[in-house]
């Protein structure tokens, strides 16, 4: 059934629309037969990867003063382009908003989303996506002024809390308050800048959003020590790239690029030393750099794809340090397991 991968809401529009949806040729969504991947074939034929990114989110995807896209998510687009073309610039970035990102991927306007999208069951099934990997573990938290003396979120009973509407943030806050029997007064403000200003001006006691966003806001304050991010995390936000369901080969490629980046960090391979890794006798290293195992070809790309990616972009830790550490985000759950005790766990690269 092809229409299973169509979004659920289409069904509600009416019989005529459904008929049109079913009649749509859906060749690009056919499961890969044998070794071919329609998405990878289309990207190769086109000569560029089309990557859906955020319209602007500090650290993850934002154009710099010269209009060049930079950030943690954007680097995953570059990594896929390097794997396919050995050229980080063969990417076209399509800015997508929270509203049109899923359509852009469903309709084939973009090949993949690298847009800090939370992996949920409904997105995985009824929207017809695959989430190849979790590149960033986030969660919703609270920031309060240090002078308030609040140590934990459970002390926020009766507080006014600044929150942005429309996203899952507001819903999580309500759910958490109900579960913990906490009364609060929400101050709902749409724009990031204004909600932060409202918090700074003291219109609310606490400001809630994803911990990464809190850290970014805190880091640009004149005295970051005046603000405390509470240890409580009230939601799980596993963020990662998304691809269309049905093209497992392309999903595999994106997944193993991420695992390769984590493995490189595990093995201590960086953009500086991976050039000399050929002399490293460790079998894991030899497999990662493509000298043994023929692993790249199994994914449909060059065997040296991880060398090319790490040389240009660095390993997972280096990508993190380049984009996210400057805006005040700690490694925390995104440290590599087991060495640093985080959640970034790469299955064996062999």
């Amino acid at each position, binding site marked *: 059934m092809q229409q299973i991968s169509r979004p659920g809401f289409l069904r509600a529009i009416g019989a005529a629309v459904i008929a049109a949806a079913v009649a749509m040729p859906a060749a690009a969504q056919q499961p890969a037969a044998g070794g071919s991947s329609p998405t990878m074939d289309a990207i190769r034929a086109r000569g560029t990867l089309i990557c859906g990114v955020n319209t602007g989110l500090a650290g993850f995807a934002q154009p710099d003063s010269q209009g060049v896209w930079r950030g943690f998510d954007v680097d995953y687009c570059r990594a896929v382009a390097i794997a396919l073309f050995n050229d980080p610039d063969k990417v076209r970035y399509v*800015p997508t908003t929270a*509203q049109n990102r899923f359509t852009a991927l469903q309709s084939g306007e973009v090949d993949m989303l690298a847009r800090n999208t939370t992996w949920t069951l409904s997105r995985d099934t009824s929207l017809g996506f695959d989430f190849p990997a979790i590149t960033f573990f986030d969660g919703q938290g609270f920031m309060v002024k240090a002078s308030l003396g609040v140590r934990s979120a459970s002390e926020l009973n009766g507080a006014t809390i600044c929150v942005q509407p429309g996203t899952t943030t507001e819903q999580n806050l309500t759910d958490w308050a109900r579960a913990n029997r906490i009364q609060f007064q929400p101050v709902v403000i749409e724009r990031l800048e204004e909600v932060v200003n409202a918090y700074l001006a003291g219109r609310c006691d606490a400001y809630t959003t994803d911990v990464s966003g809190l850290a970014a806001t805190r880091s640009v304050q004149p005295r970051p020590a005046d603000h405390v991010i509470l240890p409580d995390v009230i939601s799980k936000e596993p963020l990662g790239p998304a691809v269309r369901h049905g093209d497992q080969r392309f999903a595999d490629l994106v997944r193993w690029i991420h695992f390769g980046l984590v493995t490189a960090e595990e093995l201590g391979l960086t953009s500086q030393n991976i050039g000399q890794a050929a002399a490293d006798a460790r079998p894991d290293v030899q497999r990662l750099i493509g000298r043994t195992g023929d692993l790249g070809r199994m994914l449909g790309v060059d065997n040296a794809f991880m060398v090319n990616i790490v040389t240009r972009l660095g390993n997972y830790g280096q990508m993190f340090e380049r984009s996210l550490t400057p805006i005040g985000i700690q490694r925390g759950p995104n440290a590599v397991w087991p060495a640093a005790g985080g959640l970034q766990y790469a299955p064996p690269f062999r």
Partner: protein
Amino acid sequence: MSDITANTPAMSSSEPRSAPLTAVGPIAWLRTNLFSGWLSTAVTLALGYLIVRAVIGFVDWAFINAIWSVPVSPTGVAQTQACRDLQGSGACWAVVTEKHRFMLFGTYPYEQHWRPAIVCLLFIGLYIVSSMRRFWNWTLIPIWIGTLTTIGILMWGGILGLPYVPQERWGGLPITLILATFGLALAFPLSILVALGRRSNLPAIKVLCVLYVELIRGVPLISLLFMASVMFPLFLPEGMNIDKLLRAQIAITLFAGAYLAEVVRGGLQALPKGQYEAAEAMGLSYWQKTGLIILPQALRLVIPPLVNTFIGFFKDTSLVLIIGIFDLLTAGKTAIVEPSWQGFGVEVYVFVGLIYLCFCFAMSKYSQGLEAELNRHRRR
């Protein structure tokens, strides 16, 4: 002053005396308008004080305490500490200095920025030429076609040695101008046809036009943009994509067309029936009657509401931000996403607002002049 002439003897040598200073001139004007009574004087003084305070405060903020540039570290991170130390007492124009090219041209390749810059100038030139009455003849058509072709070549490139730039990298002011110009240039003829159709005696045409206007006017522009951006691609065959900008452009054109049609219809209805009957009595065909007699009078009548709608739509193009197109306002908002520049939104909005103001004010001044000129026969 008639009493002076009446009382003065007819002496040709005496100079005509002017009225006392308290009766004419600026002092008299002040006395009658601002200080005519104690209440009026009090209000004047209070408002004057507030205005002076506001102006001084603004000048302090915008010029005297302002910071115009900040150092940028070699890694490309701006050192905005100086700006933050101002604590809002002065403007941080450094954000505009640093980001103005991004705000104006978005993610267009940096070294190719001269191309969108020329495009903006071409658009402005096109507006000026189109507004001069001496070009109001057939020459305007080749001028528009030529200019728009040049604009297309400059923006896309790919020929004449210009590198190809895909549409999703366009941004900033050119996007705003493209959406507004094409939207209004296409919507205006469409609106005339729809307005005529709505007054037609042919039931099918009339019903179609009424349906179009009522359906489009009945939904907000945002929902049309969503329809074009989110729903429409799902109805297309897999792998077939219509350019996002084109989809937004069509939505804006259809929306503007419906509103303009009602404005034009207002002009058509304001014409006395005698004009229609006289034109018919002369034996003119429907299109001759419409083109030569009805429309010139009807459109002249509706210049103010037309320009009102034009200005509204010029600004409405900023709604494309919800579908991820980097128009001028979106580019401005994106410029302050970077953590080191967060918190300097006012400066960016002032900069973007000034650009919008320039275009909208020019439109409004031009329409005033046009109105005065076209309605000259009424002021006898």
